[in-house]
């Protein structure tokens, strides 16, 4: 079944066209890579899909539902979670609180429940904390749970951000350069993670420059240039495609 579909998606900033007539079609349980030189519109595409930007033209469908005009805060409930190119953890929350916040969209306790400390509210909070610890442990960060983001490395911040996105129990994970600044082991961890998720039916759309990561982790790669789709196909095909080489190495 089609998970995400965009039809003629276009975004203009003033006179500049960042993304033009982009048709994207993502299936369940696959890892997709977005490849393209700087300024080719990868992050803009991600921002459009996560509704932080409004498209100039075109439509976005998620599991057949038109989400083109939906507010961004409704997306995680539907099953779309994302990370940011420059990590955006909350400095005033500890790592575990940051990760717990990812579960916000799956929780239902209102102020009333919380003030009365109803059984539901308490078990929800317990469950959330337990899951967050598990996610952090997966990333090898369990012992940093009570530390604030500024005191861990950049790579660790990226991992926490991925853990936070996973807490939303997404069906589609949007990762913006997840391995930039990561150590070799950390990048391998992310690679294994997205493969694992794919086996559980969760798709990822990954903006990445790291060719080794793309070829080892992705099922399908979409190459962009100047806001348009250049080629798409399996990693072998795309990474050896003459057009891709031309765009990348001509600059």
């Amino acid at each position, binding site marked *: 079944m089609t998970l995400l579909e965009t039809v003629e998606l276009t975004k203009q900033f003033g006179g500049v066209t960042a993304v033009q007539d982009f048709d994207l079609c993502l299936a369940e349980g696959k890892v997709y890579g977005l490849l393209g030189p700087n300024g080719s519109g990868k*992050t803009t595409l991600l*921002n459009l899909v996560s509704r*932080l930007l409004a498209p100039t033209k075109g439509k976005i469908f998620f599991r057949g539902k038109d989400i083109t005009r939906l507010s961004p805060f409704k997306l995680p409930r539907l099953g779309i979670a994302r990370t*940011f*190119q*420059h990590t*955006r953890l909350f400095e005033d929350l500890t790592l575990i609180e940051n990760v717990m916040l990812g579960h916000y969209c799956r929780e239902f306790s209102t102020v009333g429940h919380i003030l009365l400390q109803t059984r539901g509210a308490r078990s929800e909070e317990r469950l959330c904390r337990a899951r967050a610890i598990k996610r952090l442990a997966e990333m090898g960060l369990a012992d940093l749970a009570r530390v604030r983001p500024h005191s861990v490395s950049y790579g660790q911040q990226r991992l926490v951000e991925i853990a936070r996105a996973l807490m939303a129990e997404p069906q589609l994970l949007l990762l913006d350069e997840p391995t930039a600044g990561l150590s070799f082991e950390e990048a391998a961890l992310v690679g294994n993670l997205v493969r694992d998720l794919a086996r559980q039916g969760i798709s990822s759309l990954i903006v990445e420059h790291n060719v080794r990561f793309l070829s080892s982790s992705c099922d399908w790669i979409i190459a962009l240039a100047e806001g348009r789709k250049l080629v798409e196909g399996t990693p072998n095909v795309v990474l050896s495609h003459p057009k891709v080489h031309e765009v990348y190495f001509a600059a």
Partner: protein
Amino acid sequence: MDIAQQAINGIAIGSTYALFALGLSLSWGILAVLNMAHGHLLMWGALVGYLVSQSVELPLPALLLLAATSAGAMCLAMEWLAFKRLRGRSASREQMEVWTLVASLGFGLIALNVAERVTLGYPRQLPSALFPIENFVVMDVRITTLQIAIILAALAAPALTSLFLARTKWGLALRTMGHNVEIAELYGANTSRLADAALFSAGALAGATGVLLALYLGTFDFTMGEPMLLKGFAVIILGGVGSIWGSVLGGLGVGVVESLSTLFLPGGYREGLIFGLLVLVLMIRPQGLLGRPAVERL
């Protein structure tokens, strides 16, 4: 003729608002310093003018110069003690704005308290001999020489400022700082020195305006800064933050509306009218009349 008379009075008082708001607007627009002590700088100008005129007999220009220098120096002290450090530390402009606002509130409290002790809370008066006032009457409308002087000042100061900002390299650097301090630095501007100069001028303008306003109103007391500050906010939001002629127009607008309202409304409602209008403007244009909406980059 009442309307014409009130309009003239409104333009005169509005000119002091414009002079006052000019510095407030530029320091907010360029340096992200929304100076809550700006009103107290104006009061300090008047106070220095008063204290000096009590001991020495000086002509008005010398007095204005003294008041301006001392208020400018106070503003500079705030910059050195706090604003400059906050500028280096803040991650975003919004954060910087909030921190400087709080710091300037602190400075304002200090200035207010000291002025209260100095004046002992009594209203004070500048010697009226400072500016011999003559009346001109044209078709039943009276205009005084003092009013003319204030209006001329409110035209000259923004004209000079906009010339400076448009024509000099320092002006260009300052305008660049309004967008991005680092870029201004990359191009070799001494941003720290420029910020000093800008804040000194803003303070000096407030101080000089204080003397003029105290002369115009007859008396002043240590609380004169607060209502002035609130009016300054109204002016710059109406005219647009960082816009020079916007603050002149805003100032004149507020002054005239205020004066004319006395013909139709009981006096007490004057303030409420202005600020009710301000809330209305912000409802329709959340970024102010001439402001541009901020966009967060991700």
